[in-house]
């Protein structure tokens, strides 16, 4: 018994000693450990220890504030600096913030960035613009609503598409598990980044392993709307080497499986759309099926339910000799299928983009030298199922920059080469002569560019004043034009709490293949209303859209835990390009159209004539990508307030007010222009002007022929057969010696007799093989050239003469551009009531917008979208979560003629170890 008591005592003593030994040195405790201490544990500490704890908390809070409010950014100056010191309008989205937010993909995460307008088109597919300047020029094809003036990059590798311009967001191979941060620079920045950085830059920076332990980042979630997605990356450093491998997958369904049809102004089932009996509503076009019957709707859509279906895989290798000598080689593959607003001009608003691509990206940093070379190759089917939209592409970029540092002076010269190749021939059917005519390019097109740049960065007055000058000269292979964007920046740190800055810069877009090399003949005969043919022609000599910008900024830290950033901007954009009718040929009708019924062995047995239905019909319209006089003048301001209320609560509120005026704006609606060109062609022809030849208008041939066939089916053929029978019998009798009058009298008595019936049967047999031909309308061919200024004068004169009704549509006016909301913004609240629980609520708001395209006018109502993710850490940093996107289920459409939105509710897990 004594032994047992002694044993228990020893065990208790040892346990006690161990417990004592495990008592932590408070000076070594982490912030998290302090936060986890109970009231009793804290109360038992000495006041000296409490002081030590507050010291730890206090220092950590400072670091905490800095971490949240003053993140490092590299995009603004091409080297690391704190965002507070960034000379440009800059926002950094950290990986932690992105994950906490619950965003489903990179596009949605950009809703957290001030100054960005992010509108959902279909579930998970977004239209993204920096500050605006969207839907310019208006009243044109929907493709002109795409953002072609922002440069998106992954690790400074441009992912801009040079076929139509802009970014195919779904084709980015990376996802959240890859991303370290996303840096956004607002404002014209071509001097630093080259063409297309007109409204700004979005640079996605991927993770680099920073530990010799295996690092895993993973995210997976699933929910309604057929949503399931995930990404995983694993990385590790081994000595001087490192690697990271990753993969991602995303599947989301649309909120409907129906298609919006412009002509019907309604959502319809796919099969109803494709039904040949579903005709255009306009009486003049009602004989055409809305769906082009030469195209299979099943080729266009695998299904009409899928919004996003994509995956990507990446491998990165790293070799680090030292902090200033390191190398990386990354490669990957992506495959994507999305249903979104169409890049073509179909009668439905949505079409499918299907893409795959492989890339390799090499980056070397050796002291001051930065080298980057990358290649991206793949296939882009921009309108699946529509011949002419599928291309193979290869994009090559080679950049070299060197950072010379002379005390406070930093000089960074650079050289840049880009080569974009697009080839649509592999996917085109050649004509009988072996020529390719059904594509946009019908060739292997190359656009190369060479650029040299110099950036000078000088700090003075104890580094408080910073002056930056950037200059770039860029030459594209498509023309002799030289583009020289400039950037002048001055920033002044009044003290560590106040910073003012100013930017004057210019930037330009680069040429893309459709604008410069299009050579596409769209033969519409029999499938589309007039004109019979439309030819699309690129223009290599056009100027690329360019912006000049003035921006003033003020950053202030009124308290350690608050950052306020104000930026006011004014910019003017010119040299917009637009696809406009340039010339046309029209048929000026001079006679009637004729149909003949031909019987074998007999010949033409019936002829019918109808008068020409219109004075003139457009035959071929030549559209050309060309510059227009339009200028966009925008001014606005963005405010961003970030407040770390406590270490448990972060609040961020941001908003942008802007106003855009379109100067020299003309209502360029191509359909209206073609109608006016046709009218003026007819007017001129009446005065004997513009006639260039003679021809036959076959435009009405098909409907006329169909009409004749219908008449024959309705009894006309029986009458013809009777007439032919009568003529045959009369002929036989006249051959037998009767006069025509005698034969006619006798045959009239023979109806129903055996002889009559025998001949009638033979005629009927021949009639079953009857051929009906229709002849077009004999016409003069007139030529007409479009010139907006001349049209304005001419139509005014014609209106004065009472010949036309003219609303002044070609008069250049200054109007308020309404496609960019006058206010857009959002907020985020990150609340962490306990260490394991995180609640992230975010909201986005934009005011009313009016889209105008060639399909009409579409107004989107003001909308507030609320999102919330609640995550709970079950083990270390690994958490389970529930996530609500568009939590209140607001249905309002965010983009013209695209899907209504719905709430998306998900559950998932975040891995990080």
């Amino acid at each position, binding site marked *: 018994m004594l032994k047992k008591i002694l044993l228990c005592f020893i065990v208790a003593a040892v346990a006690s000693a161990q417990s004592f030994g495990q008592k932590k040195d408070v000076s070594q405790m982490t912030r998290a450990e302090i936060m986890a201490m109970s009231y009793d544990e804290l109360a038992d500490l000495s006041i000296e220890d409490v002081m030590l704890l*507050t010291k730890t908390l206090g220092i950590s809070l400072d670091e905490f504030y800095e971490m949240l409010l003053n993140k490092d950014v590299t995009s603004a100056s091409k080297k690391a600096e704190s965002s507070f010191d960034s000379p440009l309008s800059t926002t950094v989205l950290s990986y932690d913030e992105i994950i906490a937010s619950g965003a489903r993909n990179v596009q949605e995460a950009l809703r957290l960035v001030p100054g960005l307008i992010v509108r959902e088109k279909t579930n998970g597919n977004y239209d993204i613009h920096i500050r605006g300047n969207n839907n310019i020029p208006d009243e044109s094809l929907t493709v002109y609503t795409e953002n072609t003036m922002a440069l998106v990059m992954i690790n400074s590798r441009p992912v801009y598409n040079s076929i139509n311009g802009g970014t195919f967001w779904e084709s980015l191979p990376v996802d959240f598990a890859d991303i370290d941060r996303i840096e956004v620079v607002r404002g014209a920045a071509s001097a630093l980044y080259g063409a297309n950085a007109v409204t700004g830059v979005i640079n996605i920076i991927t993770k680099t392993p920073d530990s010799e332990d295996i690092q895993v980042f993973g995210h997976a979630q699933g929910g309604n709307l057929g949503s399931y997605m995930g990404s995983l990356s694993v990385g590790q450093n081994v000595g001087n080497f490192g690697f990271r491998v990753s993969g991602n997958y995303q599947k989301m369904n649309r909120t409907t499986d129906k298609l919006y049809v412009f002509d019907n102004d309604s959502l319809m089932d796919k099969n109803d759309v494709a039904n040949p009996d579903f005709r255009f509503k306009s009486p003049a076009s009602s004989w055409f099926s809305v769906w082009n019957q030469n195209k299979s709707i099943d080729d266009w859509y695998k299904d009409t339910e899928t919004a996003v279906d994509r995956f990507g895989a990446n491998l990165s290798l790293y070799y680090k000799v030292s902090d200033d000598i390191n190398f990386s080689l990354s490669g990957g593959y992506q495959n994507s299928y999305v249903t979104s607003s169409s890049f073509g001009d179909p009668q439905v608003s949505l079409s499918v983009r299907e893409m795959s691509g492989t890339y390799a990206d090499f980056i070397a940093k050796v002291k001051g030298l930065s080298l980057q070379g990358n290649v991206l190759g793949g296939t882009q089917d921009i309108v699946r199922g529509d011949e002419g939209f599928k291309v193979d592409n290869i994009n090559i970029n080679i950049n070299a920059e060197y950072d010379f540092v002379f005390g406070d002076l930093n000089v960074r010269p650079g050289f840049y080469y880009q080569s974009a190749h697009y080839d649509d021939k592999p996917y085109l059917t050649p004509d009988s002569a072996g020529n390719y005519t059904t594509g946009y390019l019908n060739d292997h097109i190359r656009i190369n560019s060479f650029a040299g740049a110099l950036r000078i960065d000088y700090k003075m007055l104890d580094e408080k004043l910073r002056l930056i000058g950037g200059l770039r000269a860029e030459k594209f292979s498509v023309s002799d034009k030289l583009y020289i964007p400039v950037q002048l920046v001055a920033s002044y740190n009044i003290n560590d709490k106040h910073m003012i800055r100013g930017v004057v810069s210019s930037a330009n877009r680069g040429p893309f293949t459709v604008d410069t090399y299009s050579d596409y003949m769209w033969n519409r005969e029999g499938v589309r209303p007039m004109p019979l043919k439309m030819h699309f022609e690129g223009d290599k000599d056009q100027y690329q859209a360019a912006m000049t910008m003035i921006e003033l900024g003020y950053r202030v830290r009124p308290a350690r835990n608050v950052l306020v950033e104000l930026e006011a901007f004014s910019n003017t954009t010119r040299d917009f390009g637009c696809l406009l009718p340039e010339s046309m040929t029209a048929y000026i009708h001079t006679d009637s159209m004729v149909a003949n019924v031909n019987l074998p062995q007999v010949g033409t047995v019936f002829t019918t004539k109808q008068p020409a239905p219109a004075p003139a019909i457009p035959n071929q319209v030549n559209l050309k990508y060309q510059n227009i006089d339009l200028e966009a003048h925008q001014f606005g301001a963005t405010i961003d307030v970030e407040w770390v209320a406590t270490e448990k609560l972060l609040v961020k509120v941001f908003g942008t007010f802007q106003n855009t005026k379109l100067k020299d704006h003309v209502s360029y609606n191509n359909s209206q222009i073609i109608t006016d060109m046709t009218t003026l062609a007819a007017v001129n022809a009446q005065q004997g002007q513009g006639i260039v030849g003679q021809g036959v208008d076959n435009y009405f041939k098909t409907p006329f022929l169909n009409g004749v066939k219908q008449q024959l089916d309705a009894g006309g053929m029986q009458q013809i057969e009777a007439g032919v029978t009568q003529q045959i019998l009369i002929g036989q009798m006249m051959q037998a010696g009767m006069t025509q009058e005698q034969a006619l009298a006798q045959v009239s008595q023979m109806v129903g007799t055996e002889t009559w019936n025998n001949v009638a049967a033979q005629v009927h047999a021949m009639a079953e093989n009857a051929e009906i031909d229709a002849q077009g309308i004999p016409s003069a061919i007139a030529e007409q050239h479009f010139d907006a200024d001349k049209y304005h004068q001419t139509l005014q004169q014609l209106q004065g003469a009472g010949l036309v009704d003219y609303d002044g549509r070609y008069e250049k006016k200054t109007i308020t551009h309404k496609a960019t909301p006058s206010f857009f913004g959002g907020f985020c609240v990150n609340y962490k009531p306990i260490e394991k629980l995180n609640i992230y609520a975010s909201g986005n708001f934009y005011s009313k917008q009016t889209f105008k395209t060639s399909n009409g006018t579409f107004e989107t109502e003001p909308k507030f979208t609320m999102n919330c993710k609640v995550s709970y850490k079950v083990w270390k940093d690994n958490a389970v979560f529930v996530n609500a996107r568009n939590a209140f289920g607001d249905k309002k459409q965010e983009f013209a003629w695209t899907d209504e939105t719905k709430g998306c509710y998900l559950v998932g897990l975040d891995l990080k170890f």
Partner: protein
Amino acid sequence: MKKALLTLLSVFVLHGLCNAQDDKFKALFIYKFTQYMEWPTSKQTGDFKIGVLGGSPITNELKAFTAKRSVGQQKIVVEEIMSIEDCPKYHIVFVPAKASSNVGEITKNVANKGVLVVTDKQGMAASMSGINFTKVDGQQTFEICVKHMRDHGVTATKSLLSLGVVVE
């Protein structure tokens, strides 16, 4: 718009919930002061009373720290002070920042009554209170005014004086 207002409102509600970290450590300091102060013999019997002027989240934090704890043989009781005239009965009176306008009247009431007046507003220790919470480079700390303590009938130990920022 209603949804936006509702959400913004919820932000401020959340903020109200989230100053707890600072309050928690202030409460911890107040509890620890009990171990580093000397009160007159007249106050060394009965309950050890800590009063908080006006509604403050610190009241609950103090109750959490002092539950079942005592100062010597004196059980600690935390109360909300209902009237400034009641201040002399407390050992410690905490005046939150929002009630700082009352400090002058409180100090008159507690003269030589054996009360440690703790405040939470810049400059208060130099002007009226015995101890005032402050932050230096983000670290929660406190200022001590020996004269005011003496005026209020309490004495700080040397170790406490060595930890705080002594002001004249």
